[in-house]
């Protein structure tokens, strides 16, 4: 159970407070309701590049990191297709420094040319390090545009190509800030050894003077239902053949989300899972096999991916995956098996409460979903899922005509 108090400032900024007196630390987490899905198709990778620029100094504070380190704090951030999330951890008695820093960069950035130059290079190196200079590193750069034709999920957060990052201009940066980095588009969570009253005073002092700005209203082109099986073959300097299969599934707020999460657990959570036992251990077709969901806000993907044992053909391997999926469509999952994945989820949720930062991030994310209190109802939602639900969603989802399959082959095999 993660308790919290909640209030909204006059400029529309939502604030949540989680009091935890067992730690001497505090966390300030701020979620901006903007991700790669909000980008212009010709300027992809921008939300993430912008995240880097948020550390390049703000209007009144030339250096973001240094004053924070000076009070014993640390920070980081991440960008996804849906959100951009920034967080600070520091000794609770120095919490005001976090308010000072974080509110100033919501007020306005320094927009320094030097910072833009440097971060274009840094992000280009990140693109190389994580996506281009790694075996299989560019899978998502290929799989997204195969699975999505209209929706902005068709590109990855790093962007479609290096040139989009290299061509980013200061005007783009300013426009993006004005459009998305307003109090109305943000959720602030403060957690740890703090009191709600004190947080309220600090929030009113540092954040309330920031102009509300304009509310960004999202109007994304939605994907049309997929009606044909899609396939693509890639040949690269990799040692093993691999298969990636993507199926369409509903977005995060759909009631079936919980059933999909359990379905992926049944297939591939741990060494008792179906794919691991059947395809890796018994049939020895894969040396690595996984199923997982993308958990995105708009309709997402259910992924099955594996690396093939040398000498196994992609036809054989793919057929074996389908045969496991067909079983889920034809037969109800046994009670024991469903209870097993539910128990595991319950346990994971209890263990996740060991981390203050995780609690703060989760509160912000669930508030974005509509209500932070949903976080505390998760276990119940998972427990409600029935074997019939798993069978129903398997039938709805695992259809060749809504699948996108990427064959990632070694150069000799292509």
């Amino acid at each position, binding site marked *: 159970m993660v308790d919290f108090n909640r209030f909204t400032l006059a400029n529309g900024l939502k604030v949540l407070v989680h009091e935890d007196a*067992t730690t001497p630390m505090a966390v300030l987490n701020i979620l901006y309701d903007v991700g790669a899905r909000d980008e212009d198709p010709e300027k992809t990778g921008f939300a993430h590049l912008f995240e880097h620029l948020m550390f390049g100094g703000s209007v009144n504070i030339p250096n973001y990191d240094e004053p924070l380190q*000076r009070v014993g704090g640390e920070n980081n951030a991440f960008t996804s297709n849906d959100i951009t999330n920034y967080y600070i951890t520091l000794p609770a008695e120095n919490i005001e420094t976090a308010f000072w820093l974080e509110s100033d960069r919501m007020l306005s950035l320094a927009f320094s040319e030097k910072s833009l130059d440097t971060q274009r290079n*840094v992000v280009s190196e990140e693109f190389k390090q994580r996506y281009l200079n790694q075996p299989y590193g560019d899978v998502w750069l290929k799989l997204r545009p195969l699975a999505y034709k209209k929706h902005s999920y068709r590109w990855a957060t790093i962007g479609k190509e290096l040139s989009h990052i290299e061509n980013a201009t200061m005007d783009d940066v300013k426009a993006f800030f004005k459009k998305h980095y307003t109090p109305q588009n943000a959720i602030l969570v403060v957690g740890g050894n703090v009191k709600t009253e004190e947080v309220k005073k600090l929030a009113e002092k540092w954040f309330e003077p920031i102009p509300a700005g304009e509310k960004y209203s999202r109007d994304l082109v939605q994907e049309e239902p997929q009606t044909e099986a899609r396939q693509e073959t890639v040949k690269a300097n990799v040692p093993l053949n691999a298969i990636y299969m993507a199926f369409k599934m509903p977005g995060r707020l759909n009631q079936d989300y919980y059933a999909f999460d359990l379905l992926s657990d049944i297939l591939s959570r741990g060494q008792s899972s179906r794919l691991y036992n059947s395809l890796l251990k018994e049939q020895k077709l894969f040396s690595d096999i996984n199923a997982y969901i993308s958990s995105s806000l708009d309709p997402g993907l259910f992924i099955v991916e594996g690396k093939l044992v040398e000498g196994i053909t992609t036809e054989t391997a793919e057929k074996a995956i389908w045969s496991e999926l067909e079983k889920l469509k034809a037969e109800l999952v046994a009670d024991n098996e469903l209870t097993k994945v539910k128990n595991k989820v319950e346990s994971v949720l209890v263990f996740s409460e060991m981390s*203050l930062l995780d609690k703060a991030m989760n509160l912000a994310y669930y508030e974005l979903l509509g209500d932070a209190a949903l976080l505390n109802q998760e276990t119940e939602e998972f427990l409600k899922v029935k074997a019939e639900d798993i069978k129903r969603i398997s039938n709805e989802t695992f259809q060749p005509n809504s699948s996108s399959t990427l064959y990632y082959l070694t150069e000799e095999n292509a």
Partner: protein
Amino acid sequence: MLNRQQAPDFKQVSTINFIHPEKKALDNGVPVFTIYSGEQDLVRIEFIFENVNWKFEKPLQAIAVSALINNGTNKLSAKEIAEQIDFYGAFFQTEYVQDQSSVTLYTLNKHLHSVLPIVKDVLSESQFPQHELDIYIQNQKQKLQVNLKKNDVLSRKEFAHALFGDTAYGVNIQAGHYDALKREDLIEYFKAAYAPNNCTIIVSGKFDDASFNLLNDAFGQDWEKSNAVKNSFNFTSTKKQFVYTEKPEALQSAIRIGQLAINRKHEDFSGLQILNTVLGGYFGSRLMNNIREDKGYTYGIGSGISSLQQAGYLFIATEVGADVCSAALTEIYKEIEILKNELVGEEELDLVRNYMLGSMLGSLENVFSHADKFKNIYFAGLDYDYYSKYIEKVKTITAEELLALANKYLTTDSFTEVVIGKK
């Protein structure tokens, strides 16, 4: 009027409280250290075994045992073990590191009595079936093939081998090592290492007397002792050496440079940690400021010092654009030279002090982290004085001491320099 240019007042962290463990022993003498917290209804139990009987011609014995230990006993198959653990929502993890192998159980308190017997069965009766070993060998060889395509992985392997040779710290694992694995070797190692006289148990979480009795019932008897010899290595510093593997298609080069140094037992260790922080140990470090934030050569660069039981080493590691690899190396050596020739300014040193104290406080997030802090000192033969002295050193070290430490330990003439990619 709010003055946003004025930083709020702050305080340096003054006290850091460490939760000390309670020590008990099982009936057969296995020491049990418990760090208690009643906050959540869960517990972590770690069974830690020293690595033993090192044979350089069989470098995978301990690693394969650690990976396959839950793959079948006389009573249960690999699948049954996994199903039962998962059914109770528990987590069973094994880990092999240079000095130790551990088996860790995470469970909700309500299922402790159900999962402990499974862990006992695994730790005392594991069978290493041949068919499981065959699958392991095949799949590990495939994973190795993928890893050998990663420049950062290659740079780690080459660096460790250059410093530590064919010991458990440095052996460069090849596909042939997997092919040579024999079931008898695994059983032999399992019997030698996973024995009560080679085991320490560290518990963290909600763990009362009744829970201790459950643990004692399971592990306090019927567990065969062994005669094992703990691994022992001696290392001597090497001369300057270069390892360069050219990858013509590389977009980035992986750089890893450094040398043997001291470990946690040495009186200079805390000072060296502070020096390391200045150089490359945090986001605001000199290497990050210069090579990422000023030059934009890399997504990240860092330095570290690593404390093993029988050695220590320091390193600087990064992946940089292939076209700027030489320039990046030049800048790294330049930063080291500055530390050896110029005093760290008072403002920077204050920042580093405060950052390190905050970081230490933040690293004690929950009961598991308190247990991890205890393991650091216990297995190095130290006590909580170590942390008191560390905190004191962070608060009081002078720029002159840092300069002396830089000259004593950052002796680039004897650095090993590994580059994988293009220069």
